[in-house]
């Protein structure tokens, strides 16, 4: 099976294009010739929406009316900027549900289907190439992350002598990123998902420094997504279009899983390596894995209590 090819240095790739554009910012004389980014004036919103965005309160402090107004602004903005009708839900957590994930690394062959499915589902910027999942190509015989290959690009996978370790947000039960945030813009929901209010994040990136799993990504520029690729089914705390200058991360596909569906990465996996479900349901598959397989967690010694496990068939 062929893999999804990735450039060797995705960062270099997008920075180069950008710097070319920025070459204009050389001196004062060039100021008037700067190209406009996105739609002009208020970033594609009406003045009223821009003011509403500015004064928008913290997610957990808004009453239902204010939430409705906030969702409306996001929908109008997508319409204004890209002409796409999107639906922004605010589905509440399901009582009695705490989500957990397990990956069978014997089955993972490194196809990275999960990575692309995630990008398509979660509306990450296509130019910035933000990916919530990183599949590490590891040397058999060890678990040393430092010798792992992040940008592996052979003709076919799996490569002899290698195994594959997909890493994404581990949805820690004691998340260091949540402690780090100075404005409580990120927190753990009752269903165990660590979420971000993209309208409250100030972009200090302290959470990125605190995360031991490199799960958090920053919008260094306005995320660009072609209108036809925009996933219109979104959630306020999940895959709705993000503004520039804020941090984002995997939310276990909150827009799907709170409706009882599986995350996009789980559905996309061609080998069935991924098991996702309710940790509080004794009959769930995830509980079966935890009770019957020898599982381990990444960097367990840091005490972050990930709700993300790995196991093997043998």
């Amino acid at each position, binding site marked *: 099976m062929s893999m999804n090819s990735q450039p060797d240095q995705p960062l270099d790739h997008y920075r180069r294009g950008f710097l070319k554009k920025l070459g204009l910012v050389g001196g004062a004389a060039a100021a008037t010739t700067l190209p406009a980014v996105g739609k002009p004036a208020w970033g594609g919103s009406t003045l009223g929406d821009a003011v509403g965005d500015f004064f928008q309160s913290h997610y957990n402090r808004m009453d239902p009316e204010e939430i409705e107004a906030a969702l409306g602004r996001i929908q109008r903005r997508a319409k204004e900027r890209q002409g796409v009708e999107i639906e922004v839900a605010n589905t509440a957590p399901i009582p009695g549900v705490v989500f957990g994930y397990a990956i069978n690394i014997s089955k993972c062959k490194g196809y990275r289907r999960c990575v692309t499915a995630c990008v398509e589902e979660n509306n990450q910027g296509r130019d910035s190439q933000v990916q919530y999942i990183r599949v590490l190509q590891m040397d058999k015989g060890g678990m040393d992350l430092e010798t792992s290959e992040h940008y592996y690009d052979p003709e076919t996978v799996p490569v002899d002598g290698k195994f594959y370790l997909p890493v994404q947000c581990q949805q820690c039960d004691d998340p*260091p990123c949540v402690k*780090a945030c100075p404005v409580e813009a990120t927190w753990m929901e009752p269903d165990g998902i660590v979420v971000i209010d993209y309208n409250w994040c100030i972009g200090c990136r*302290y959470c*990125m420094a605190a995360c031991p799993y490199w799960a958090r990504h*920053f919008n260094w520029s306005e995320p660009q997504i072609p209108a036809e690729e925009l996933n219109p089914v979104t959630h306020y705390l999940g895959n709705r279009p993000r503004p520039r200058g804020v941090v984002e991360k995997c939310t276990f596909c909150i827009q799907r899983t709170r409706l009882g569906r599986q995350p996009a990465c789980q559905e996309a996996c061609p080998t069935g390596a991924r098991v996702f479900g309710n940790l509080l349901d004794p009959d769930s598959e995830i509980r079966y894995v935890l009770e019957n397989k020898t599982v381990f967690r990444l960097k367990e010694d840091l005490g972050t209590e990930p709700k993300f496990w790995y196991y093997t068939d043998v």
Partner: protein
Amino acid sequence: MFKRMLERKPGGVVDFVLSAVGRLLHGRWFYWLWLALLLGVIGNGGFHYIGQLRYGLMITGLSDQISWGFYIANFAFLVGIATSAVLLVIPAYIFHRQEMKDVVLLGEAVAVAAVITAMTFVMVDLGRPERFWHMIPGIGEFNFPVSLLSWDVLVLSGYLLLNLLIPFYILYCHFQGREPSFRAYFPWVLLAMFWAISIHTVTAFLFSANPARPFWHTALLGPRFIASAFVSGPALMIVALQIIRAVTRYPVSQKVVRMLALIMTVALQISLFFVIAELFTDFYNEGSHSASSRYLFFGLDGHAALRPWVWSALGLNLFAVLILMINPLRENMFFLNLACLLAFTGIWIEKGMALVVPGFIPTPLGEVADYAPTSAELMISGGIWAMGLLVFTLLAKMAIPIELAQRDRHAKPIAGAAATI
């Protein structure tokens, strides 16, 4: 009642503020040239910052891999400069040494300028600076006491207030020609002393709080920060005091310079000892905790962007400590100034780029990448430094004539001493 407060009575608060601000409008040609120069650099930085607001932090060399860089490096360093004002405060207010009292207000002006500069560096590092109000308790959500960043905001704001209010009170009293009441200001001075240590400790804890980053996650970081602050602060103040001595008739005793030089010598020795302790722990048994140090000092997987920086820092600091440890050289102003320049630069690298950046390399998933500031980042940073110098210049310009007038009242008037600076 409010109207009466704002009336301009001779010796009143309004009169005090107006006359202090009025001093800013009088100066010789080099004062205006200096201001013009600073404003030019600030303007240039501002222009590039507009570019950053327009395009996002994309214009920096930062990435998801190395998400803090030059801005935060300067921030960490400048908090150290602010802390070291305490070195003048303790001898002046606690031991009542007159020559220290003469310059303590200048030390506090350095602290004010350094805190404002440090905070500005954090502001320009924010992805959404217009959401700054989210951090204000009451209208925002201030994650105190859990987030170390909220601690940092709190201690820096408090320190800024203390270092504005204490000098304001003392200068106001001197303006009125009376001695400040010891009982009125001493408790605040005492608080400011402990507060000074706290700002740099909290800044160190901001980094060392992260087990995700083994390079920062060491108990030695706090002590290292304080020790190196007591190198860079005195180095800056020794040079600043000499400049003030040259361009004004403000009394700067050589005793002050000597004391600062001595503190700097000891602090630099301790600071270098800490570096050795870190190097030993990292490299005697090299494990994954040493990967960042290996990257920093020797390079990792073909990446070694910081290697020239850190070896320069080490070389500069070693050269400086050699000069400082030889008494005749330390007493010689040329060599002392040279040592100040070397150590200031050395610590700026050590506690800046060589501390912040390697914490991110390799990433927690083992990826190795390099970071270098872009020219826009350097221009914006230059503008912020110039703003700090401007703040200090203006504060000193306001304070010095008041202090000189107070001295003249106590001493015999010096013939032809017009308070022109």
